[in-house]
């Protein structure tokens, strides 16, 4: 990096970083430590230590009340579970339908207008990603009223950004030579898309979709907390009535569902690659 020579031996000296670089690195670490100390102080100022000292006993108390789980509550959970699964699946499908065109508009190599539509598509992706599904649901419940529809649309809106971003990156990483070869046959733009690009991104597309579906099952399980239907609604009801054994049962059902969906998505992705 540096061009200096040793005064005594005359050998060339090589260092990994320049002195300026080393100084900046030190300053960076110092700043990080200072920030940590400051944040610690802010945190402890707002903490009531009596409660923290009490925490183990409280936790033990709640755990005690949560067990055994209310197994008899299980049949009642089947309909909300079905709702949750539907909310995740329909939301993912709706999200995919909206995300695919957005991805093609956002990808540098397929965007019909890099000046106007590409930034617009990028904005849609960023906007969708920056807002959590729970917040979308909160807004939509206010607009559409409580129920599954709000949940489905909330899931779909959040999924656009996730699927759109990963898909447009996959489109940009396609092999240009395959596309060039299809172009050279005299194919039209739509044919270039379906023969040159789609086969290249299809496995990634399915992988992303199944992965998002898996995430959406987890998210839709809690959307009921703000009134969007499904298991979350039951969870809220049980929490409100301090029915702890029921809460445990709901958590077990959510855990089981997530494990199953995780297993399915892992299987599907392995089959694709």
């Amino acid at each position, binding site marked *: 990096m540096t061009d200096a020579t040793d005064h005594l031996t005359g050998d060339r000296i090589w260092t990994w970083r320049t002195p300026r670089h080393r100084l900046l690195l030190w300053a960076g670490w110092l700043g990080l430590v200072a920030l940590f100390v400051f944040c610690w102080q802010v945190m402890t100022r707002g903490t009531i230590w009596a409660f923290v000292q009490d925490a183990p006993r409280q936790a033990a108390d709640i755990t005690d009340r949560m067990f055994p789980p209310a197994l008899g509550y299980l049949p009642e959970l089947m309909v909300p579970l079905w709702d949750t699964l539907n909310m995740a699946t329909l939301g993912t499908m709706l999200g995919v339908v909206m995300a695919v065109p957005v991805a093609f508009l956002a990808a540098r190599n397929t965007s019909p207008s890099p000046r106007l539509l590409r930034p617009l598509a990028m904005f849609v992706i960023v906007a969708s990603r920056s807002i959590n599904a729970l917040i979308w649901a909160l807004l939509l419940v206010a607009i559409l009223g409580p129920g599954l529809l709000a949940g489905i649309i909330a899931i779909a809106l959040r999924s656009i950004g996730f699927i759109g971003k990963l898909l447009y990156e996959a489109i940009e990483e396609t*092999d240009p*030579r*395959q596309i*060039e*070869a*299809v*172009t*050279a*046959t*005299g*194919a*039209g733009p*739509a*044919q270039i898309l*379906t*023969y*040159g690009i789609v*086969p*290249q991104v*299809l*496995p990634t597309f399915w992988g992303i979709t199944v992965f998002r579906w898996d995430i959406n099952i987890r998210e839709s399980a809690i959307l009921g907390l703000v009134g969007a239907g499904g298991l979350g609604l039951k969870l809220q009801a049980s929490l409100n009535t301090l029915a702890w054994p029921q809460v445990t049962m709901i958590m077990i059902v959510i855990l089981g569902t997530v494990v199953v969906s995780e297993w399915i998505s892992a299987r599907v992705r392995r089959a694709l690659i």
Partner: protein
Amino acid sequence: MLDLNGLTKTYKTGDRAVNDVSLSVPKGQIVGLIGPSGAGKSSLIRCINRLVEPTAGRITLAGTELTGLGPRALRRQRRRIGMIFQEYALVERLTVMENVLSGRLGYVSFWQSFTRRFPPADIARAYALLDRVGLLDHADKRADALSGGQRQRVGIARALAQDPELLLVDEPTASLDPKTSRQIMRLLTEICAERDLPAIVNIHDVALARQFLPRIVGLRAGQVVFDGTPADLTDIALTRIYGDEDWDAMRRAEAEDEAETREALAARDAMVLA
């Protein structure tokens, strides 16, 4: 058949890749395009079907001028020009048959191609071509399951599926071993002879060009500096194309290479027979 007139390509960076090239290829003739890396071979043949947009000059294919055509008319003309690529450029995740049929994309509607319902005549032609290149048994395999030589055969079948009047061939043997390279070159020259097809073949392997191509054009810094038969390609001509080099030593090394390949193949055959 094909006439290039003052063809020039200047890239945005200011590189003049092709500089005032005029060239005429009659029906049935195969022209080898040789030259050092960066001489503009690739740009030149891509200018012909306008995968690269030429800056100046005229391209005429059997009386039709290709420069200045609108997108739709250009697509119609591209159907007449088959192209074969360096690293095969097959759509890897499609089957061999789909790749060959993709040569018909310019002739069928979007819906026909999307649903893979190609006209029976196209399918019959695709089977005939696969038979011609010796891959009839591999029709339903995915392209990425084939070896390099087999893939290039699919590339040739795809180009021929267009029923082209001209072949553009970009470094067909660059990623193949010496023996497969020769097989592919032999197949190409045979097919051109069968169909009386003119072709332009970019090739960096001078020995291979000499062996198979009756006319060789040398390109240096985007300009034609040699145009003649393999016999005309003397050391002086090679120096004009590539710059100073010990051509005699190169030829000797090439001869040794080939002898080695032959020996290795013979040894392998002996082992297989034993």
